[in-house]
């Protein structure tokens, strides 16, 4: 039979032969598919974990370090790099406070001080606040959702390297005395071609391009992970509040960051090839910059604050031994804060002479955004009222957060009113306001949550006594630094002045602020020491040291490379509290290749088995190629035209499969 078929085979047309060949290949692959090892009752325990470890481990050495796609390693890097930039920005803040401690002080010259306050603002906003929230999210979300990796892990690695190169660009330029000196907001025409000669403002604008590409990439990664990779059974209603916070934050980044991408590119083109977007003499408008910048600027501060509300919810839930009161109200408050944040950017421009009727709309909008946050605070307090709060260090930071942030929120309501804002805008009163809502509102919860998840990340507990000392020092240092700024603002001290004359009554508040700044600095130093000290001396952490309810505490501390041997199943919104002894799991994922489970968006029913890409150097190489093109495009517009080629090559190699042959089940090598 076969020989008859053989000679008639050659006579058939090409498509016919192709079809038959493909069918035979399909049959062969089906056999091989049956032989694939999968986890389950037959393959479990230490044997399974050993094989999973071998499959998921990244290549060793520096190549492996650069090629890793493990969300935990990338998350750790994000957090450590962001904390380094926090320290650098903090040192700049100390320099500013030293200069402002005394009137007419000659410690730091005008140009140097202007560079320092620009670097302080840009570093804190773009290189510390957003990336550290991304870092914590990238590390914790996959664990909290019960999956083995984020979506698009290579894009995640690329996002970290772009963030790192952006930070290096800004700080190397600052050290080489070509750092920006136009403020973190770079209003035109001061940042325009005529009044900012040289490459200072270009370097600021290009740093924005780097960090916004990184934040957008990380946002897409987080949205896809939260929507598609949740554990079976974790419906949207059962999703933890921190996952809701990161989802809202990521969607806000996707809508807000393009605004600054557009206006910083328009600024670079104005400065490099002579376009006239912001040139009032050639039909442009200086306010176009302010509108586009603040359309991004205000959502940016909520992008920093909303993950912090997620932190507070998780800490309050765990340390009050009960789920947050009115879960749905907190989720709706998060979503409405995210939406409302896009409608109030003009409150930064009350003094620019726009029509007054428009201003009253923005006053109302700016006030209304405090309602959802007010409800959230009520829900946390109600959780403490009905729960059994244990005031360990993370919970102390939540109490410090509530005391501090509500003051910042109320001063925010004050500057929302036009007649008040015309006196308070661009004075130290506003400096006090935004430090209350950014340090009080985001850094306090961040310190709390770093203490809370430290055992999960490192396997060791941070010291409780040192933690309490650090908290009180932070709290006192913060209020000593920033409360007097309300007073110096009301006494008429404008922002961004490198000195002030004696005799205006500003000496006392500025001196107190300067002393407080050093107290706050020692507190942050103490926190870092506590972190480093506990790495080696800290008590060994059990998988669930705080007795929390979310899935990240269901795996070991620190978690294995593959996070979960079997993908857990969720049956309530506080899984670990409602499980009697045994964790329900689903089985059947491959063991010889990296694979995780995708579930449907709303009901989280198992949907698709998704292969996870292997570690690869290409994201790092692509980041270098894109980075060089960005930096070279400061010096010549041709760099973009020439640079597209290396970037296209690197990105194609990133996507191109290693061996061009079919596998029984798809593998991303």
């Amino acid at each position: 039979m076969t020989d008859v078929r053989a000679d008639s085979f050659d006579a058939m047309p090409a498509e016919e032969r192709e079809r038959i060949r493909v069918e035979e290949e399909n049959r062969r692959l089906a056999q091989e598919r049956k032989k694939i090892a999968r986890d389950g009752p037959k393959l479990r325990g230490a044997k399974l974990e050993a094989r999973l470890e071998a499959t998921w481990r990244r290549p060793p050495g520096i190549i492996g370090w650069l090629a890793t796609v493990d969300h935990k390693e990338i998350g750790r890097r994000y957090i450590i790099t962001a904390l380094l930039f926090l320290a650098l920005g903090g040192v700049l803040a100390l320099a500013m406070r030293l200069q402002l401690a005394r009137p007419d002080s000659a410690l730091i010259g005008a140009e140097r001080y202007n560079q320092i306050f620009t670097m302080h603002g840009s570093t804190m906003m773009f290189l510390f606040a957003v990336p550290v929230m991304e870092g914590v999210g990238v590390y914790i979300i996959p664990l909290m959702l019960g999956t083995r990796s984020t979506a698009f892990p290579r894009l995640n690695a690329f996002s970290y390297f772009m963030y790192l190169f952006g930070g290096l660009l800004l700080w190397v330029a600052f050290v080489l005395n070509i750092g920006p000196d136009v403020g973190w907001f770079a209003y035109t025409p001061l940042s325009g071609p005529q009044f900012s000669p040289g490459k200072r403002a270009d370097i600021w604008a290009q740093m924005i391009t780097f960090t916004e590409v990184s934040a957008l990439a990380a946002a897409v990664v987080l949205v896809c992970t939260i929507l598609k990779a949740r554990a079976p059974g974790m419906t949207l209603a059962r999703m933890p509040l921190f996952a809701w916070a990161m989802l809202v934050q990521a969607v806000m980044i996707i809508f807000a960051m393009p605004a600054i991408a557009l206006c910083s590119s328009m600024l670079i083109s104005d400065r490099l090839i002579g376009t006239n977007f912001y040139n009032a003499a050639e039909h442009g408008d200086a306010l176009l910059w302010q509108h586009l910048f603040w359309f991004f600027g205000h959502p940016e501060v909520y992008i920093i604050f909303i993950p912090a509300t997620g932190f507070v919810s998780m800490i309050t839930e765990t340390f009050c031994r009960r789920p947050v009161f009115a879960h749905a109200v907190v989720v709706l408050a998060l979503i409405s804060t995210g939406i409302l944040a896009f409608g109030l950017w003009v409150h930064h421009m009350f003094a620019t002479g726009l029509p007054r009727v428009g201003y009253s709309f923005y006053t109302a909008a700016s006030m209304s955004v405090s309602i959802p946050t007010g409800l959230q605070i009520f829900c946390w307090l109600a959780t403490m009222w009905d729960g059994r709060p244990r005031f360990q260090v993370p919970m102390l930071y939540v109490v410090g957060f509530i005391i501090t942030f509500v003051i910042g929120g109320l001063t925010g309501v004050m500057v929302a009113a036009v007649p008040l804002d015309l006196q308070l805008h661009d004075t130290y009163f506003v400096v006090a306001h935004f430090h209350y809502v950014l340090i009080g509102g985001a850094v306090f919860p961040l310190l709390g949550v770093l203490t809370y998840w430290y055992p999960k990340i490192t396997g060791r507990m941070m010291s409780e006594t040192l933690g309490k000392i650090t908290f009180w020092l932070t709290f006192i240092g913060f209020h000593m630094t920033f409360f007097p700024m309300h007073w110096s603002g009301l006494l008429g001290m404008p922002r961004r002045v490198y000195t002030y004359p004696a005799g205006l009554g500003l000496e006392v508040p500025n001196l107190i602020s300067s002393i407080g700044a050093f107290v706050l600095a020692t507190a942050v130093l103490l926190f870092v020491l506590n972190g480093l000290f506990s790495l080696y001396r800290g008590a060994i952490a059990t998988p669930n040291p705080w007795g929390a309810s979310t899935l990240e505490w269901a795996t070991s501390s620190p978690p294995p490379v593959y996070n979960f041997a079997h993908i857990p199943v969720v049956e309530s919104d506080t899984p670990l509290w409602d499980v009697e002894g045994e964790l329900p799991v689903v089985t059947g994922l491959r063991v010889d290749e990296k694979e995780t489970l995708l579930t449907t968006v709303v009901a989280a029913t198992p949907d698709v088995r998704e292969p996870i890409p292997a570690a690869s150097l290409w994201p790092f190489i692509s980041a270098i190629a894109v980075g060089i093109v960005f930096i070279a495009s400061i010096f010549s517009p041709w760099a973009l035209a020439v640079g597209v080629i290396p970037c296209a090559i690197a990105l194609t190699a990133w996507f191109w499969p290693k061996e061009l042959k079919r596998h029984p089940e798809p593998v991303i090598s």
Partner: protein
Amino acid sequence: MILEPRFTDDVSDLPTHKFGPSSLTWWGVLGYMVIEGAAFALAFAAYFFLMGHEQGWPPEGRAAPDMLAGTIFTIVILLSEYPNTLAKRAARAGDVAAIRILLPVMVAIGAVLLVIRGFEFNSLNCRWTDDAYSSIIWALLLLHTGHILTDWLDTVVLAGLMFTPVAYEGRRQVDVDENSMYWRYVWLLWIPIYAMIYWVPRL
């Protein structure tokens, strides 16, 4: 004390690829489409913001861009939807032979469009340094050119990949499906830009 697993059900027979919102890359492509949409929406807002300042648009007697190149471009890009839809259906049907014909056609159409776009840049009757009007028009055209160029390069790489044996894997057909979805987005965005560059100055 890690909890003992209680085995509920087995997912080994789930598929490894699906079309539409069940696929992870569909959400990734959607994410980037929203990002670019936000950027274009803000560019449109900047365009009308700058236009709001002027009595005449284009200002003081500058000629509006010539229609020829732009209109040809629009016709060709709208016609390209036909092979694009065929490619999308072929991808859903898993018909690799058809894909191997249609993707090179899309690559060719993309190349033709990029050439027409070159003529469009010449027919703008202004240089980006003249005034804010010329700057924003050049910016819009350049942004959309970037948009076409990136998707064209995607299609070239994907077409190359479809000629390898890997083409028969389901995930690659999902890629073709999503690339067609993205191409629809490219010409959908072109319509308002076309109106703003060629028609609004003539109102």
